[in-house]
């Protein structure tokens, strides 16, 4: 698989970009001398230049430093809930496919319920109950995504179960738990990898949207969406303040989309999500 990714130019470039951005974000403290949180009102809103490469924001903080720290949060908030959503979706999807009609009906109903209203509105409901924080963002994204993942996993698992070798295993009296572990899960793996990759951009966009609206990550924590929102006042005078974080979001989302598309072509060419 890794070989195929390297062979596919678009995928290799996307993976490279993601890797570079991730490394920059992780090693941010060693790369730049500025503090991302401490305010320095004396040098507020300075334009890009030699000292502060991307200038400073309204509270005198270095924009580039904040950008890298924000990317950290965005990446973390993209990867963790996406992983959790894939995990939850897989368990529910397999359960719906393998454990009889009643389980199927209840799980399908539950996923339909979570897909029946805009994710952003549900995020607001969660926000209302537990307040804006990393936790509420993670929870919201998991709820937004696991439903459609469960749907896809269910249909793929059903088609795997239809294979003759599984019927054979079942007629030989193999327990369904070992059928699932031995046959269903390994055959689901390519689908899950693709689903994971393709849901990451959605998570990044959701997090940034929530933070932008002020119902996601809260200051003094940093997030790319929050940075755009904080610098909106200066949109016309200092457009780069809004542009820089937006561009990072866009680049990440695009790279993950490219990578996901390429992975799907490599691993799972027949299915379309």
């Amino acid at each position, binding site marked *: 698989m890794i070989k195929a990714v390297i062979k596919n130019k678009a995928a290799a470039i996307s993976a490279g970009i993601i890797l570079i951005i991730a490394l920059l974000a992780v090693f941010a403290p060693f790369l730049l001398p500025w503090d991302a949180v401490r305010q320095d009102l004396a040098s507020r809103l300075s334009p890009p230049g030699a000292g502060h490469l991307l200038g400073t924001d309204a509270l005198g903080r270095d924009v580039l430093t904040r950008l890298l720290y924000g990317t950290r949060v965005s990446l973390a908030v993209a990867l963790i809930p996406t992983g959790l959503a894939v995990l939850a979706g897989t368990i529910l999807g397999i359960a719906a496919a393998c454990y009889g009609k009643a389980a199927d009906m209840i799980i399908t*109903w*539950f996923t*339909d*319920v*979570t*897909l*029946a*209203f*805009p*994710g*952003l*509105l*549900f995020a*607001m*409901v*969660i*926000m*209302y*109950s*537990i307040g804006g924080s990393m936790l509420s963002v993670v929870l919201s994204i998991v709820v937004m995504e696991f439903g459609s993942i469960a749907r896809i996993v269910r249909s793929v698992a059903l088609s795997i179960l239809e294979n003759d070798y599984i019927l054979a295993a079942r007629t030989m009296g193999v327990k369904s738990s070992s059928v699932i572990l031995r046959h269903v899960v390994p055959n689901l793996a390519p689908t899950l990898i693709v689903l994971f990759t393709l849901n990451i*951009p959605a998570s990044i*966009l959701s997090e*940034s*949207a929530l933070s*932008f*609206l002020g*119902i996601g990550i809260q200051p003094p924590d940093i997030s790319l*969406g929050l940075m*755009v*929102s904080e610098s*909106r006042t200066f*949109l*016309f005078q200092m*457009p780069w303040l*809004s542009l820089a974080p*937006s561009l990072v*979001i*866009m680049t990440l*989302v*695009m790279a993950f*989309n*490219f990578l996901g598309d390429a992975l799907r072509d490599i691993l799972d060419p027949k299915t*379309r999500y």
Partner: protein
Amino acid sequence: MSAVIRRGLGVILVLLGVMLLIFVVLRIIPGDPASVLLNEHASEDSIRRLTESMGLDKPLPVQFLDYLKNALRGDLGQSYYMRKPVLSLILTAFPYTLKLTALSASFAWIFGILAGVVSAVYHDRLPDHLFRGISLLGISVPVFMVALFLQYLMYFRLSLLPLMYDGSFVSMILPAAALGWNSAGSVARLTRSGLMEQLDSPYLDTARAKGLSTKKAILFHGLRNAILPVITLMALQLSGMLSGAVITESVFGISGLGKLALTAVQTRDMPLLQGTVLFTALVISVGNIIADVTNTLLDPRLRTKS
């Protein structure tokens, strides 16, 4: 006929689920809503009186059934903050959201289908790469970025369009474009892949053997077949669009449903939030049913079955 009944029953069950889910999540809240509403110096007595008047002293299942009963009668409760019936607030806000989504959906469909067709017709040649790039950009850019960019360009730089929504049609153009840009990307991608799947179909050979050029064959015959999944997608996108509408409405100051929900969160107005989410779920269900009906009307194979 039984399919229709089953479908309707499904919608009702899902809406019931939505109500239950929101009800439960909103009640996880620590502390009681009444004390949040009144200021901290309120007396025990006044808190208790408010709690009772809102019915918050009853056990949760009873509260839910009460809510359900009232909702069926069209009573979604009283807004804590604005002191008006929730339903009337929603019905005032909904037309704005409807206008916004309808306009941006038409924007998305026209440009998306056009780009998808061009991509498929010229596939793997320059126009295809160009439009694929643009549609990937479409699905990769956050809605607020497009909105801010459009404000910067069309208002600040070019002074062509108004900055905020003021009720006029002209001021709706920017919000609609910002919101539509996103779904245009996915419509284009789906139209392209749908058409590409049709490209190998023997009936396109038939069309060419009849004397249609390849391009016309794709347009007159292929598109007809590729459009059905796109319609289903449009319905699925309604949910995403309403999410996007929250952002667009907040950036351009449109007092639609999204803005209402946001206000509800900011003012800790539980009935209003609950009502807005429920209403949106209803709108989406109706959208899905419309898409189903359209598909059945357009696809002769489905029509014969039912």
